[in-house]
């Protein structure tokens, strides 16, 4: 240590809390989540290739099942009752799954590492940032990752002529919403994970949900009781929403799916914030 550290520019105090935020318990939020989101960009600057890999998984499913297997199946009945190619039927399901995968992967493995091993948030909470800033920033990053996968996949769908309606433009914001909800709930779950072995349970939840949430066939294959169960799964709502948008079979009922994800995101964010507070501010 050799030179004096001259004093200078005093950093601005955190902005005073806006009207909406006054209802939050004090000390949770400094309105500076963007600084931690910026950190995610810096930290991942050298890891773009690893991030990219997650994009290919749904693409491979589309090629093998949609195109390959689809040649055997031929046409199926679409959500509006009209016949569509099998590839066009499953592609929106895979789009929802890719939005989910990117978000969940980031919100579980990566956040667990930062929370329990790297002690990143312990350091961050010693600055003005509070647990809500941390939750917002990390959920945003996971959402961006899921959103990026979904955007790439949408581009592929467009290139393959699988988007048959102008409503498909709304598939992108819808994919971001799906990512947001999964990121928030994923992060909330991660705060309860104690060891890496618990990630097996995450896999155990994600894989069957991917296979059974009407991704590959319509809901009416299920008998009554099972059908209700499937309709409770979050990915089911993502698949239905995407399928309706990409084929143009739009109806008011879709707002129910949107509401499902908004509630999921809000609950996830709230639980994640509360848990970060209890875990780190002991």
């Amino acid at each position, binding site marked *: 240590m050799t030179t004096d550290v001259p004093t200078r520019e005093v950093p601005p105090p955190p902005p005073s809390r806006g009207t909406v935020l006054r209802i939050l318990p004090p000390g949770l939020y400094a309105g*500076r989540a963007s600084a931690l989101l910026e950190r995610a960009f810096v930290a991942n600057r050298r890891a773009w290739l690893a991030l990219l890999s997650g994009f290919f998984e749904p693409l491979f499913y589309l090629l093998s099942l949609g195109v390959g297997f689809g040649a055997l199946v031929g046409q199926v009945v679409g959500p509006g009752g009209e016949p569509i190619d099998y590839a066009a039927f499953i592609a929106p399901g895979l789009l929802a799954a890719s939005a989910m995968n990117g978000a969940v992967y980031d919100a579980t493995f990566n956040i667990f590492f930062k929370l329990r091993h790297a002690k990143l948030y312990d350091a*961050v909470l010693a600055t003005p940032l509070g647990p809500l800033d941390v939750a917002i920033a990390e959920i945003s990053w996971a959402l961006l990752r899921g959103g990026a996968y979904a955007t790439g996949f949408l581009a592929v769908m467009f290139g393959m002529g699988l988007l048959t309606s102008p409503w498909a433009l709304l598939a992108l914001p819808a994919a971001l919403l799906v990512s947001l909800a999964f990121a928030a709930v994923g992060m909330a779950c991660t705060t309860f994970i104690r060891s890496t072995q618990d990630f097996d349970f995450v896999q155990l939840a994600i894989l069957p949900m991917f296979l059974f949430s009407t991704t590959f066939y319509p809901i009416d294959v299920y008998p009554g009781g099972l059908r209700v169960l499937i309709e409770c799964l979050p990915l089911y709502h993502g698949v239905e929403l995407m399928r309706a948008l990409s084929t143009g079979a739009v109806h008011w009922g879709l707002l129910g799916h949107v509401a499902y994800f908004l509630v999921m995101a809000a609950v996830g964010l709230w639980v994640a914030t509360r848990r970060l507070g209890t875990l780190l501010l002991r």
Partner: protein
Amino acid sequence: MATAGSLIHARGLVKRFGSFEAVRGVDVDIAPGESFGFLGPNGAGKSSTMRMVSCLSPRSGGELRVLGMDPDTDGPRIRARLGVVPQQDNLDVELTVRENLQVYGRYFGLSRAAVRERAGELMEFAQLTDRADAKVEPLSGGMKRRLTIARALVNDPEVLLLDEPTTGLDPQARHVLWDRLFRLKQQGVTLIVTTHYMDEAEQLCDRLVVMDGGRIAAEGSPSELIRRYSTREVLELRFPFGRVADHTEVAARLAERVEVLPDRLLLYTDNGDAALAAAHEAGLRPVSGLVRRSTLEDVFLRLTGRSLVD
């Protein structure tokens, strides 16, 4: 101590973990520009107290004001003006040395240009300029510690809280760091330090409290504490291990007070040489006899009946 102008004001401060009380009613007032120390053995409650002051841990009871504000409601505004060096380094392992400083500055709301410049200065300060673009993981323990301290300075804090700043540093690195901290103090930064090294406490602190078992056992400047709780000199008489107790009775007649350690007797007296002569006269034949000045270690032994560094 005046309460009005104090930066840190605590009364009956308590921290509980479940039913266990780690901090049991601490009263302190720390004035601007002061360097203040918490001296105590493992588990005394030093870190728990520091975390409450850093607004990283809600208090379980008592009164606490930091920079005139309440940590429970003004955490972000208080932390904006503090620099915190935790006991365990928690650098960002996904970033380089330079990025660690820049990104941390951004958490405080500094502009990109400001953090770029600040990172350069702080890397000079921490002698890490040549490692600017290296990842943090392969740095040595001392380098990581210096970077953690440099990082805590990124927002030009008014109060710097250092939890065992030099644990794990080699002697030379400790002295260099003490020198850096002394300069910060001269620039008006308030320093709050925890340590279980008495030499560090004597070097760094204008005033300190001795903590034990979650309570404050004594308070004062290092020299005051020594005057109040010890004698001017100490005579250390070494005996073969296990034979020390045989001589306690004789020794007790030669000094104001005697402490019995496993391998030696400590005789507290204002004239060590005279006591040594008297010991020989009384027929004591120690392996060695040494006269030295009293230190905070002796104060601690007196107050708690235990050694500081065990």
